[in-house]
């Protein structure tokens, strides 16, 4: 048992170092890639379900046909847009921490 405990601790320490290094290096790129994808999805959502925020672009019949594909994203999309000053605001107005 003590040997196993030591092995587990070593594995946990290795994971911690691995995560720390990822946070130092690749995490920022991963975050930005997610932001870029999010922006693309936001455009798609506005085009298809814009009437939810007062921008009717597609006739509702087509929106309804696309609805099943975008349902999983609706909650986070609305939450994210609600925090923006303007819904078309993009990252050049991001304060990057400030």
């Amino acid at each position, binding site marked *: 048992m003590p040997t196993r405990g030591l092995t587990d601790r070593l594995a946990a320490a290795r994971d911690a170092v691995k995560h720390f290094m990822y946070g130092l*290096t690749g995490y920022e790129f991963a975050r930005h890639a997610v932001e870029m994808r999010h922006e693309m999805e936001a455009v798609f959502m506005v085009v298809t379900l814009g009437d939810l925020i007062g921008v009717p672009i597609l006739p509702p019949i087509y929106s309804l046909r696309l609805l099943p594909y975008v349902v999983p994203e609706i909650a*986070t999309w609305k939450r994210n847009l609600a925090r923006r000053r303007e819904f078309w605001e993009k990252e050049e107005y991001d*304060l990057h921490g400030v």
Partner: protein
Amino acid sequence: MNTLVAVIIGALTVYLAYTLYARRIDRNVIQSDPKRATPATLYMDGVDFMPTNRNILFGYHFKSIAAAGPIVGAIVAATLWGWLPAIVWLVLGVSFIGWASDYSAIVISVRNEGNSLSAVAHRLVSPRTRTVLFIFIFFYLLLVAGAFVGIMAGVLSAQPRTQFGIIVLVAMGLLLGQMLYRWRTGLVGATILTVGITLVAILAGPWTEEIFKGLNAALNGITGNAPIVTYFDPTLANFKGAEAKIMPSLLFWALAICAFCYAGSVLPIWRMAQPVVYVGFWITAMAMVLGLGGAALASFVKPEVAQFQIPAFKGWNPQMGPAGIMPLWPMLFVTIACGAISGWHALFGAVGTARQIENEADMLPVGGGSMFTEFLLGLLALLAVSVGAKGAPVGAFASGLGGFISVWGVPLQYAVSLAFAAFIVIVLVVTQLIFRVMRVTLTEWLGEVIPPFRNQHVASFISVILALLLVMTGTWIYLWQLFGGANQLMAALSLLLVTVWLASVGKNWLYAGLPTIFMYITTVASILVTAYNLYFNVYQPNLAAGRTLPVIGSGLMVLVALLLVVAAAFIGIDGWRAFMRYLRRPAAAPKAAPARG
């Protein structure tokens, strides 16, 4: 004194302050509760609000707060007052103030739905506090941008062997962005290629020295080797003051840095700013890790590079220039900023990091832990400048750090080249980010009232021109100290906000309140001392000599200093009123934490 003892002092400081003080505050005052839902879990949107593993967040937060601050501050402080006051302030500052500021900024945001400090100030203190904070942030970024562009232009102009590596670094950053986001190359392969080429270019610096010397000579030949601007600089000639000259080559490199920063400010962040920072990070990290390890081992392996060369204490009030004063209090406490305490950390932590905290138990390891790691970086810079006493402050730092790196068997001349490059790289990459944030802050502050400021080119151009004007005074040490004062004042204001919040929720506010009082008084005093120095040491001599540009530059700095003091007074008065209001009328008990499902 040798480096091993200093490293042991540093390790003990981290261990004792973290376990005996920080953990106690976290447990007894903040009462962090792993079962309480955090904004990251409550409002998860997959982008800003994203629960993240604590170790990943630790690395991310540390990288975001670690910049040139702890290095430049330690270099200047050791040069002015000796290594002893510097190490004492580093140890006491991080133990009682620094970690508390960083950690509390995350706490206040996590407990206030992930809001930024300015948004919390708007709600808890007064609406005008948010606007004043924007003004404050813009000018303090302007000061650090001016200081960094000045330092960089000076080093690049005087050290032709460093220029090739920097140009390749920028090119490799652009290539990395293209590879990752357009060509979808794997991160590991792209890193090896771009960082490897940059490293080779840095080490090849001595071979390209003659080419860049020729370039500088050709540039200076345009005016027949006559300076473009002449000014009185009180920091020259061993702080007795002397005439300084801005040659065409220095102006050329200052303009080149400004062009680079302008591009970093207006291009999409993935195209330039982010990948250049990433490549620069590896160069700096390599030098720092080898340096810190070398500092610990030097006493056994290479004792000649482990002995301190500069005096422990140089005096309470070293003379600087004909009429300058540089009293240890308050100036030391703003000269060394980021290794002991920094307002930037609080600003970033409250938004960038707090929205990713998965569990309240992670707030201390991430916020406090990163600050203690930053302290070690400041300590390394102090050791490097303390053992390498040759030449100007930056040169002393490079030779000291190069000595530590050489402990690993790297030939000394290459080790010094790497150390020099590490310093330039970390300053350069941070400067472009500063201009980016300046541009956004200017838009936030004035964009509603003056629509042209919403244009990113207008906002970036104005930021660059103002910084260039400050560089023309040439007195970067004063710029640095003014920035340090503003930065530390920002930390004091964030601690003030934490104190008001603690009072509003009926918690013991002393751990944040006492540092607030100390930092507020110290930093306002330091800004006034710097304004005094600027007026009598730079503005008046240059006015008497009829030099327009240095007079405008130093006059602008005095005005900025006074503006910062006025802004701080407004925030201080509003904060005090809010604090007394909450003390007299105890606020309702904190809301019960929603259960985590």
